[in-house]
């Protein structure tokens, strides 16, 4: 269910697992059948649904020793590497390895040994300055490690870098050596990474003071962890959490050429993008929750203060008898007590109000951040798509995109449906109708790239529609202008559930 189901996906995963266990004769077959059917049609499945299917399937299998009829899908090896079915299998295997370990997953696909080629890399960190490196940089790296081992403070390390490393080697090398060394120290586990970031985050912050530098930092992380996609994503996510990286830098890095090349073959750039957008969004949700609960606290603090004041006033104006004489004011002890509670209640009210104002300011800042984020996201999507989409005059719909051939000759849809086996040139693309077993994937790489990227554009728009809507006008003014490709516009509007005709009114 899109964009958000009533329960977290993990709930449904659990229900399905329980049903498989409870009805072992009937239910697993149903699930298997559904998976097969979805797999068959996966090229037509929405990108967000594909991602969810991958996450669900890998999690599900992890509860059943990864048993599956992998040999049925072994044919994906014959498909081009951008074929959605092949990408699906690769991504499921990647997630399985994360949930268990490499050898285990390899063992689980022994019925289809060829699929081993689709497993993620087995290696560990890619440290350039380890013992195998003979250069001066290894010596620097070793010295840095010693400093850390000796529990040097971040300040000391920054000084050391500024005095010894930076003047000699320049910024780029300094960044590389320091960052990779820190990552290496933190490479043993998630907790090691967090510890390094907490203690030496300042060192990294010093080197990543602007967006360009931050993009360099991310590139180093990507290089160090290139064999482990999970750690790449975790490292970048945590650095953003510690505010060493901004979400804008992450977006810029995701849309750098190295990643753009993978948009249609790997989930790697998308996972990192999802994490960044999600985190930004979660920050806002957290702030909203805090403000809402602070408001409630404020209302009751205000009421309590008012009540205390009223009690105090009443006591002060009360007439009491002291030694037989009427005196204004209740007995002094009581007055003193009431006065102090009234003061406390007032202080409390003021302090809650101040917290509320502070949170409101934080929320305003966060809302600005997310607006900037979405603008940047859309601008990037738009510009990379504009470079690669075939001209709008030739290809205006997704169907046309799918049927346009690799050598950029437009193919009329009607010709396709009455297709004969050999076309004019007798080339393999005459099988455009597609065989039932799906062992041929007809869509060219460029077209697939466009389809996938458009799919993600739509998925992001839909996922965060509620946050994007307030900025739709700005979006239209700056990004979705008249000359933007119709497919881009359609993807965005479909995601936002905005009728396209709305644009042409007036």
């Amino acid at each position, binding site marked *: 269910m899109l964009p958000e189901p009533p329960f*977290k996906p993990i709930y449904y995963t659990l229900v399905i697992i329980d049903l498989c266990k409870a009805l072992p004769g009937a239910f697993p077959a149903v699930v298997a059948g559904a998976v097969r059917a979805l797999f068959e049609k996966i090229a037509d499945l929405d990108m967000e649904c594909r991602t969810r299917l991958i996450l669900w399937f890998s999690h599900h299998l992890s509860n059943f020793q990864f048993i599956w009829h992998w040999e049925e899908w072994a044919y994906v090896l014959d498909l081009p590497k951008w074929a959605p079915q092949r990408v699906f299998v690769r991504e499921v295997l990647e*997630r399985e390895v994360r*949930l268990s370990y490499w050898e285990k997953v390899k063992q689980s696909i022994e019925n289809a040994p060829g699929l081993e080629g689709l497993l993620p890399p087995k290696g560990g960190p890619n440290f350039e300055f380890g013992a195998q490196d003979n250069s001066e940089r290894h010596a620097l790296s070793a010295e840095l490690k010693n400093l850390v081992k000796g529990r040097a403070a971040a300040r000391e390390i920054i000084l050391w870098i500024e005095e010894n490393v930076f003047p000699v080697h320049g910024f780029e090398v300094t960044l590389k050596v320091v960052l990779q060394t820190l990552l290496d120290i933190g490479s043993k586990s998630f907790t090691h990474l967090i510890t390094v970031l907490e203690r030496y985050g300042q060192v990294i912050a010093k080197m990543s003071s602007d967006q360009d530098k931050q993009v360099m930092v991310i590139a180093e992380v990507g290089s160090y962890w290139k064999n482990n996609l999970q750690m790449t994503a975790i490292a970048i996510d945590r650095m953003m*959490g510690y*505010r060493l990286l901004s979400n804008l830098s992450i977006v810029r890095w995701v849309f750098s050429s190295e990643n753009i090349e993978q948009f249609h073959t790997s989930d790697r750039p998308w996972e990192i993008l999802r994490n960044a957008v999600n985190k930004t969004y979660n920050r806002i949700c957290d702030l909203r929750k805090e403000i809402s609960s602070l408001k409630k606290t404020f209302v009751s603090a205000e009421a309590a203060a008012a009540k205390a004041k009223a009690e105090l006033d009443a006591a002060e104006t009360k007439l009491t008898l002291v030694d037989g004489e009427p005196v204004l004011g209740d007995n002094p002890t009581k007055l003193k007590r009431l006065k102090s509670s009234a003061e406390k209640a007032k202080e409390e009210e003021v302090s809650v109000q101040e917290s509320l104002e502070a949170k409101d300011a934080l929320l305003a800042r966060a809302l600005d951040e997310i607006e900037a984020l979405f603008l940047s996201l859309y601008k990037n999507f738009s510009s990379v798509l504009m470079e690669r989409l075939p001209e709008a005059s030739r290809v205006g719909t997704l169907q046309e995109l799918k049927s346009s051939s690799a050598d950029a000759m437009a193919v009329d849809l009607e010709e396709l449906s009455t297709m004969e086996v050999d076309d004019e040139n007798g080339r393999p693309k005459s099988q455009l109708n597609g065989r039932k077993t799906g062992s041929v994937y007809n869509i060219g790489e460029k077209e697939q790239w466009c389809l996938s990227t458009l799919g993600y554009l739509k998925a992001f728009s839909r996922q965060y529609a509620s946050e994007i809507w307030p900025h739709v006008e700005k979006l239209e003014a700056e990004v979705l202008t008249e000359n933007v490709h119709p497919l881009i516009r359609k993807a965005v509007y479909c995601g936002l559930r905005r009728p396209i005709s709305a644009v042409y009114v007036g």
Partner: protein
Amino acid sequence: MVEDRIVEYNKKIARHQNPPQKFQFRIWGFSSEPVLTPPLALHQDQDPSKLSVYRDRRFPGSQEEFEQALLASTIVYIGNMSFYTTEEQVYELFSRAGEIKKIIMGLDKNSKTPCGFCFVLYYSREDTDDAVKYISGTILDDRPIRVDFDWGFQEGRQWGRGRSGGQVRDEGGYGKLVQRELEAQRQLVDYGAGSLGSFLPVMPPHCKLQRSL
């Protein structure tokens, strides 16, 4: 459906280990009953006595205070893990319930290697709740794990309390023996060695770190 699950689990409370089962012919068919978990906490306002059957002996306070701590907790305790299960595996699985703040592995006091339990800290109570509800009893790294609310992390609770250094439930040779045999090819993460050895993470109790710092 969920109610059935509670009833089923309520009936079978036992905490013994099972070596990983050899599953048979039928895909995903189980030949024997799945291994158990303590009763689930469905809602935050539910009966606190159902929050956890486990009562930590070292909790400094009354039963009532214990239950209060559990109700507010954003920390889960995870038990019956393989010694070889890594933080990354825990991260991948438990991220599905929500954004993880921190992971603290339970370590053998002597060898400083994992000994079968860990703590996961979330940012939100809702995510914590979901982790207990939806992950407990399911499989992590081929073992059915148990997920419970925890009353709060303090320095020292990451060490196993058994006399040999591991967990109390592993006392006696059998548990370790079986595990070592089955997992002979995997490697244990050593938390004692390396540059960060002196930096073992310490978290102040009920730390209120938010997602943005």
